[in-house]
């Protein structure tokens, strides 16, 4: 119990450093590109389409911007060249729903006249503008953007993939549970058994692991499939779903909710007043335990986000190198591409490992977390 905050603190330190570093780089990019920050109808700034280096070789290549655009969510899904899928924009404004195609924004160049307001896309965020093109901050704050963005579509694709994989497998089991597994089933069965026998049972206990198994399995395969889809560089993949803070935030929030719902009296007793510890020590221990309670889901969120995002950033950086050198001279670009590609292949293989590892780590830590929440009192019984 006591060791958890320490390891958690170590994780949080690492992830915070990485995250803060990323954030600074992000801010730096933005201030560089937008000296006049106020979005204006007449302003023709560099937009998402410009950032893709291939079709716009003659324009100045900005690696930071390109990388961030690949990592962040977007309202359209860039396929190749000038072709992208225009995803629907769904807004819940204070006056009601608003649905239109993101194609109408013309990559941020155009203002869209909706039923209730006029909208513009600024840094992939939908803002409300008035006739002069100035932002209506109050109306912008009021809208809830539930658009089908690139990440939402990728999320839905991954859900379809998961269902398409597991329902037929489940049918095979139902037909005859004693038949030897075949095909995809034989690939996934060891993983399912691994999660059951090596993650759930040792950490949660043989008595209670059953009720957590569906969540652990779902979360493992959800993260794994999204990690793997994220590594595919073209359409059905390529979205950075598990490297998006909203997704990891939701997953860890669900973990926290499950912990709170299933936890027993003993767990709270340990956090608020560790039994058998002198009162003065409790003054120090209790805040640490409370901090640990908050930090654990936070770390779950940060670890997955940072790992996957970092992997994407590194791979994209190596690709960017080609274009940076290519801008200097074509020969340098071709020359560096060999090394870049080798590094990209190496990193992709590493990311393949990370994809499994992070899915495993998230599942394992969730299981440990669940296990600690339902642990029976062992101080009194003294069998630990």
């Amino acid at each position, binding site marked *: 119990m006591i060791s958890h905050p320490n390891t958690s603190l170590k994780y949080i330190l690492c992830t915070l450093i990485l995250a803060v570093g990323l954030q600074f780089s992000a801010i730096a990019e933005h201030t560089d590109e937008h000296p006049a920050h106020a979005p204006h109808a007449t302003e023709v700034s560099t937009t998402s389409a410009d950032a893709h280096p291939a079709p716009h070789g003659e324009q100045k290549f900005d690696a930071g911007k390109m990388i961030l655009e690949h990592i962040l969510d977007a309202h359209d899904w860039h396929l190749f060249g000038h072709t992208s899928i225009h995803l629907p924009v769904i807004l819940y404004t204070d006056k009601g729903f608003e649905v239109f195609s993101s194609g109408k924004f013309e990559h941020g160049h155009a203002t869209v006249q909706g039923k209730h307001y006029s909208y513009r896309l600024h840094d992939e965020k939908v803002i409300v503008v008035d006739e002069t093109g100035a932002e209506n901050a109050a109306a912008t704050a009021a809208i809830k953007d539930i658009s089908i*963005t690139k990440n939402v579509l990728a999320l839905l694709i991954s859900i379809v993939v998961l269902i398409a994989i597991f329902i037929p497998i*489940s049918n095979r089991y139902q037909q005859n549970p004693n038949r030897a597994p075949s095909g995809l089933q034989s690939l996934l069965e060891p993983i399912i058994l691994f999660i059951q026998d090596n993650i759930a049972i040792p950490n949660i206990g043989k008595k209670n692991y059953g009720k957590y198994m569906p969540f652990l399995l779902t979360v493992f395969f959800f993260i794994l499939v999204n990690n793997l889809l994220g590594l595919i560089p073209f359409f059905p993949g390529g979205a950075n779903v598990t490297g998006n803070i909203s997704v990891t935030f939701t997953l860890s929030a669900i973990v926290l909710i499950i912990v709170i719902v299933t936890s027993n009296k003993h767990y709270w007793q340990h956090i608020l007043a560790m039994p058998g510890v002198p009162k003065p020590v409790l003054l120090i221990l209790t805040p640490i335990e409370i901090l640990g309670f908050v930090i654990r889901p936070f770390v779950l969120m940060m670890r997955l986000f940072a790992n996957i995002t970092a992997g994407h950033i590194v791979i994209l950086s190596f690709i960017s190198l080609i274009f940076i050198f290519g801008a200097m001279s074509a020969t340098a670009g071709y020359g560096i591409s060999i090394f870049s590609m080798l590094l990209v292949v190496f990193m992709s293989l590493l990311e393949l490992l990370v994809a499994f590892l992070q899915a495993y780590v998230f599942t394992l830590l969730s299981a440990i977390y669940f296990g600690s929440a339902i642990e029976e009192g062992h101080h009194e019984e003294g069998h630990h």
Partner: protein
Amino acid sequence: MRLLTPDFGLVFWMVLGFGILFFILSKFAWKPILSALKEREQSIEGSLRQAEKAREDMSKLVAKNEELLNQAKEERNEILREAREAAEKVKTDIVARAQKEAEEKLKQAIREIDIQKMAAIVEVKNAAGLMALDIAEKVIRKELKGNPEQVAYVNQLAKEAKLN
């Protein structure tokens, strides 16, 4: 900053999507799969136990067979021994009886020979007596013409004479 701030829309879809995924997979995938795996595990365990039991039974059976075989062998040996003994006995019996019979036959033959010999001697004696009587008659006739007392006396003498 967009990198680190959760986005309402995505969180909304994520909760919805993950919730639906969780529901569908729990109900239609994990439940049947886990129960099937458990069932399989149990059936494998059961089969192993059965196999273990069968092996034990088998080894018991083998031991029993061995025992039976040994018993049968012993019995066979016993029977053979008895048979041999019986045969031996029969043989000695037969030989003894044959010897006895042979002895009997021999004795009979000897007895027969004795009887025949005696008869022959008696005949010879009679013949010799008659001959001697004849001679003596002729002699005595010559000497004692028609003396019956002499004849009786000679006959008596011939009878008394033992030819051994």
